[in-house]
């Protein structure tokens, strides 16, 4: 039962990563839940928000509340400048060539649907194939099923191995002359697996297929360079990058976005409208119909600035240390089974303990102030693949420390005692 000697490691990390200062940037970490200090291990579901992001959102409403791209008045211009500054920051984060390649959406889900609908209405023909993997989030499965049913395309699924890695041989064999798009998750939200998306993109392009990368998890824990990956599209959600909810990003190579028809029509996405004909606005405005989540976009821009100040390489290095520590501690608990043991793995640990149901584990940990996710994590096919109904999932981020992992281990041991 013991998890020593790694238990009771000092709170302070050995690296120069300023985790104490970071923790003080996130006011919610000072809160108690159920009478206990909060141990937040659910950043893969949504990351906490630093004070500066909250201030950026409220700052918009308090100081420059106005619509964007419309008024000539002072506040509207200031709001537009802030909004477009966020676009430039996101461009920098992803190393896109130009800000026009950054489209603001309501989230990664909307962005994938935007590409699915746009491709279905333009290049996809009945019998064409979209290739995904067995570890996709439901948001990268359902949109393709919808256009499969409406447009007669075929949806192919590349298998995964017992350790939760993509079976690259099987993947390569599934690429064929009818493959039009490969849509693949960068980091699996339920297994933690880091997929070799650069290799995937190269293989797909050899077959003249487009590539969409779901970077919802990866964007917050490692450098993501769209030019290096050479993907055609990439999506992520702001709230997993310490930004507000309800805002996300579709990156697309400029020519891909220009060729993609818009999915939603309305104001701001047009150049001119008569009852006979509408001329669409240029990219990216073509995809931003209606008043956007302006406060969300501004908050996201501030969140990007926050992670840039820390440095994505530093964040990745710190989270690798946390992951190694958590793997070591959890592996020391008898009857604990890790689901997802890929060689390349983010700090996302799905696990089961004996025959304790994941929801019982979740509630028993909740009582100790430990917040983690239990369930299928919107990846039911992954659960089916491993013949399980649900897992408990601890996900670690920039504000987590070894002590959080120790608390989790203690909580698991306590749960085992209660349920034995």
């Amino acid at each position, binding site marked *: 039962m013991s998890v020593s000697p790694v238990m009771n490691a000092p709170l302070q990390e050995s690296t120069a990563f300023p985790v104490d200062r970071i923790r003080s940037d996130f006011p919610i970490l000072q809160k108690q839940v159920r009478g206990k200090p909060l141990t937040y291990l659910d950043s893969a579901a949504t990351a906490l928000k630093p004070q500066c992001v909250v201030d950026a959102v409220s700052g918009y409403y308090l100081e420059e509340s106005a619509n964007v791209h419309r008024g000539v008045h002072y506040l509207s211009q200031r709001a537009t400048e802030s909004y477009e500054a966020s676009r430039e920051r996101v461009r920098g984060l992803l190393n896109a060539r130009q800000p026009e390649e950054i489209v603001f959406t309501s989230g990664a889900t909307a962005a994938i649907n935007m590409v699915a609908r746009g491709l279905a209405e333009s290049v996809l023909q009945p019998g064409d194939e979209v290739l995904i993997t067995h570890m996709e989030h439901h948001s990268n499965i359902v949109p393709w099923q919808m256009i499969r049913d409406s447009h007669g395309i075929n949806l192919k699924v590349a298998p995964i191995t017992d350790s939760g890695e993509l079976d690259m041989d099987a993947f390569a064999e599934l690429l064929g002359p009818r493959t039009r798009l490969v849509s693949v998750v960068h980091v699996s939200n339920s297994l933690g697996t880091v997929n070799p998306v650069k290799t995937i993109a190269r293989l797909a392009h050899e077959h003249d297929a487009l590539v969409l990368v779901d970077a919802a998890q990866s964007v917050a824990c490692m450098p993501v360079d769209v030019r290096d990956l050479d993907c055609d599209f990439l999506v992520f959600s702001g709230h997993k990058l310490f930004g507000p909810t309800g805002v996300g990003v579709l990156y697309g190579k400029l020519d891909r976005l220009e060729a993609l028809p818009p999915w939603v029509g309305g104001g701001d996405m047009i150049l001119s409208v008569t009852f006979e004909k509408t001329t669409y606005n240029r990219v990216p405005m073509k995809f931003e119909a209606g008043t956007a989540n302006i406060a969300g976009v501004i908050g996201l821009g501030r969140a990007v600035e926050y992670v840039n100040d820390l440095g994505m390489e530093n964040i990745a290095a710190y989270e690798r240390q946390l992951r190694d520590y958590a793997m070591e501690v959890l592996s020391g608990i008898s009857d604990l089974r890790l689901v997802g043991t890929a060689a390349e793995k983010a700090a996302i640990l799905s696990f089961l303990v004996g025959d304790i*149901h*994941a929801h019982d584990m979740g*509630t028993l940990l909740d*009582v100790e102030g430990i917040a983690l996710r239990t369930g299928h994590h919107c990846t039911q096919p992954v659960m089916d693949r491993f013949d399980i109904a649900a897992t408990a999932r601890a996900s670690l981020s920039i504000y987590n420390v070894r002590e959080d992992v120790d608390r989790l281990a203690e909580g698991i041991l306590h749960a085992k005692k*209660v349920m034995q």
Partner: protein
Amino acid sequence: MTDTISDDIYQQVILENNRSPKNFRRMEHPTHMAEGINPLCGDAYTVYLCVSEEGTITDVSFDGRGCAISKASASMMTECLIGRTEEDAKRLFEEFHEMVVGNALGDEERAHLGKLRVFAGVWRYPARVKCAALPWHAMQSAIRGDSTATTEDSM
């Protein structure tokens, strides 16, 4: 590590019923049966009933898989229902549901619920109310003649 939870949701009676559930068996010739499914976690139980022509429940059993709360709830439900009428079962579920969502109970309801009151702490964990109610939903569906109940149906 505190043990406050055992006063709360994981009471000893619940843990015992999870470990050794009562009437945990498939019934060969039920007059009514239905499956209860929680699509959020994949938990699934089948509840079997034998109801006499006069409307009295003469036997109840269940099988399937799920968490400690749902399994203990199913176990204790089967114990409480044997010998009751269909009408009584419906009323008991309504009272049980009131309790697990945290509404105050009158003296008569408290007496009626008897040992099912060990589930009174569930309301503090709203995500788990569905677990406690799942076998009851299945039982109600079986009596109504429906084949399936899910926790996403309203009561």
